[in-house]
């Protein structure tokens, strides 16, 4: 039972570390961690068959290795030479280029695996509940869309059946016309009814109010300061400190506007989330991993995160302390505080 916010932090940590580390040992370790967490926490329905990350790796790693090996003619260990007259492909095919391509495929697989776990363990409803209050209308649109997806799928099946009864068969693209247009019309008719129901429940009384001028002005100011700071950071090296400060102020103003806009939208929660010790454990685990990989420690082991197979392929270094640090990402799979699964939101027990 891990909170969706903790899961989000976990997925982002996997992304950050996979993007930062280029050492295949750590990348493989990270991939194994995501697979263990997925196997432990994903609902049984999402675990049938071979893990999707392995299937993804079976395609991504060889493809990336082949593409890079055939097109990047760098490295000392030449395996074969392709004729020079072949455009792009002509030149030596090296072991190092193949290894670098495979490493890129492995990194991609790790990111995919992390987010595949995230998609499996977080119910869509919980993600929608994360929508900030400032995005009230956006949240409503999102909720309507997600609610109507199953209905639309059922409508699609019904329309296909009705057309089939009339002798219509879908063989090519053109045959979808008598299916799609009725689907569109029936969907829009339903949206008319929904809009009337929303107005009858007083929706328009709130949403017809436009954004206050002050909010708009602050938003424009925040964007202006952020853009100005970023441009200064890029083009005025001597103003780097001021530029970074400007970017932080710009981000702060935009976040402040979000809070300000959110205050105007009261929201009640029927079943509030409860933050548990296990969520704290996950956050601490992610913090440990981020600290090991991102903070500029005066510690030589951190340098082992970087690795390049060029110009000659060598065995990558491995620091056990870095490996231990990465194990912080296993925290969601730990069951020491709860006997329940990892995926269900924290609802208070019914009395």
């Amino acid at each position, binding site marked *: 039972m891990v909170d969706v916010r903790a899961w989000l932090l976990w997925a982002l940590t996997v*992304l*950050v570390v996979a*993007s*930062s580390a*280029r050492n295949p040992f750590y990348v493989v370790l990270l991939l194994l961690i995501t697979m263990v967490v997925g196997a432990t926490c994903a609902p049984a329905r999402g675990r049938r068959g071979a893990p999707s990350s392995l299937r993804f790796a079976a395609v991504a790693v060889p493809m990336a290795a082949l593409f890079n090996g055939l*097109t990047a003619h760098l490295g000392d260990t030449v395996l074969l030479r392709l004729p020079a007259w072949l455009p*792009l492909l002509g030149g030596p095919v090296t072991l190092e280029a193949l290894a670098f391509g495979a490493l*890129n495929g492995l990194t991609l697989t790790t990111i*995919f695996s992390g*987010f*595949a776990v*995230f*998609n*499996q363990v977080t119910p*869509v409803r919980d993600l929608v509940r994360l929508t900030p209050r*400032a*995005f*009230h*209308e*956006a949240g*409503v*649109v*999102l909720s*309507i*869309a997600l*609610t*109507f*997806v199953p209905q*639309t*799928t059922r409508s*699609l099946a019904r329309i296909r059946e009705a057309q089939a009864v009339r002798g219509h068969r879908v063989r090519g*693209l053109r045959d*979808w*016309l008598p299916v*799609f*247009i009725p*689907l*569109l019309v029936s*969907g*829009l008719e339903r*949206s*008319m009814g*929904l*809009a009337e129901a*929303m107005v009858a429940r007083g929706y328009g009384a709130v*949403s*017809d109010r*436009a954004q206050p001028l002050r*909010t*708009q002005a602050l*938003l*424009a100011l*925040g*964007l202006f300061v952020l*853009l100005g700071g970023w441009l200064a950071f*890029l083009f005025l*090296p001597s103003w780097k400190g001021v530029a970074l400060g400007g970017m932080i102020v710009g981000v702060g103003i*935009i976040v402040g*506007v*979000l809070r300000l806009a959110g205050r105007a939208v009261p929201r009640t929660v029927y079943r509030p989330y409860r933050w548990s010790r296990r969520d704290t454990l996950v956050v601490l685990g992610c913090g440990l991993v981020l600290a090991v990989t991102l903070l500029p420690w005066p510690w030589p082991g951190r340098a082992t995160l970087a690795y390049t197979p060029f110009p000659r392929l060598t065995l990558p270094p491995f620091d056990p302390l870095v490996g231990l640090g990465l194990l912080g990402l296993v925290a969601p799979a730990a069951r020491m505080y709860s006997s329940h699964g990892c995926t269900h939101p924290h609802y208070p027990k019914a009395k």
Partner: protein
Amino acid sequence: MRRSLSAAIYVLSTAIGVLAFVYPFVLDVRATGSLGVAHSQDAPLVTAALVGLSLVALLVELQGQAISAKTVAMLGVLVAITSVLRFVEVAVPMPGGFSPVFVPIILAGYVFGSRFGFLMGAFTLLVSGLITGGVGPWLPYQMFASGWVGMSAGWLGQISNLQSHSQRPASGTGDWRLEIVVLSVFGFAWGLLYGAIINVYFWPFAAGPVEQTWAPGIGPGETLARYAAFYVATSLGWDLMRAAGNVALILLLGVPMVHTLARFQRRFHFEVHPAHG
């Protein structure tokens, strides 16, 4: 005043989005190679965060302009229908980059305007990502790019001065042909452009042959030439299928779908104002 501020927010958000896409290129133009290498690992994360932030700012502005219940409901339902098409695309693999989601975004933006088009594009990719397990670091870029597809379709409708749908013929003949040709060309162009834009965020960090990869200090002309070589070698064939699919779908669905959307636009905008005095 309100319109000026709104325009400023549009321009600034889009500028931040564009800068986020091209940020890695300018980063090293002014610096030494070593700095570029040092930043090459965190640059994708920085750009993803800033793309997300500018998207957030734009959404706050767009939804803050008094969205009516009808617009909210219609947007939600159209996003649901288009997301189901993405689900079909995932279940039944299509050739290359062919995807049926772009044509509804283009036609909705064309009929309902740029603001609706942007929201439709961004929300369609978000919802379809949620239901197909496609949430990842690529999502903000996809939302931004598909939002631009819908937004520019709205501009196309305005530029062509073809948004007075109330005066259109009921049947798909004659006057529709020019619109369908224009929309087909537009759909074809976006089929290629979408892939070209999405590639940009990772291309500076991609490994590959020298003539296809970006390096610190190369000029804009050389950058474009290398990117073109990379695009032709890796993405053109894939994106051509998307572009051709857009054209086929617009030729097939364009007239009846624009007609249907225009009919509902008239119904949704029907209001009764009581007479005063």
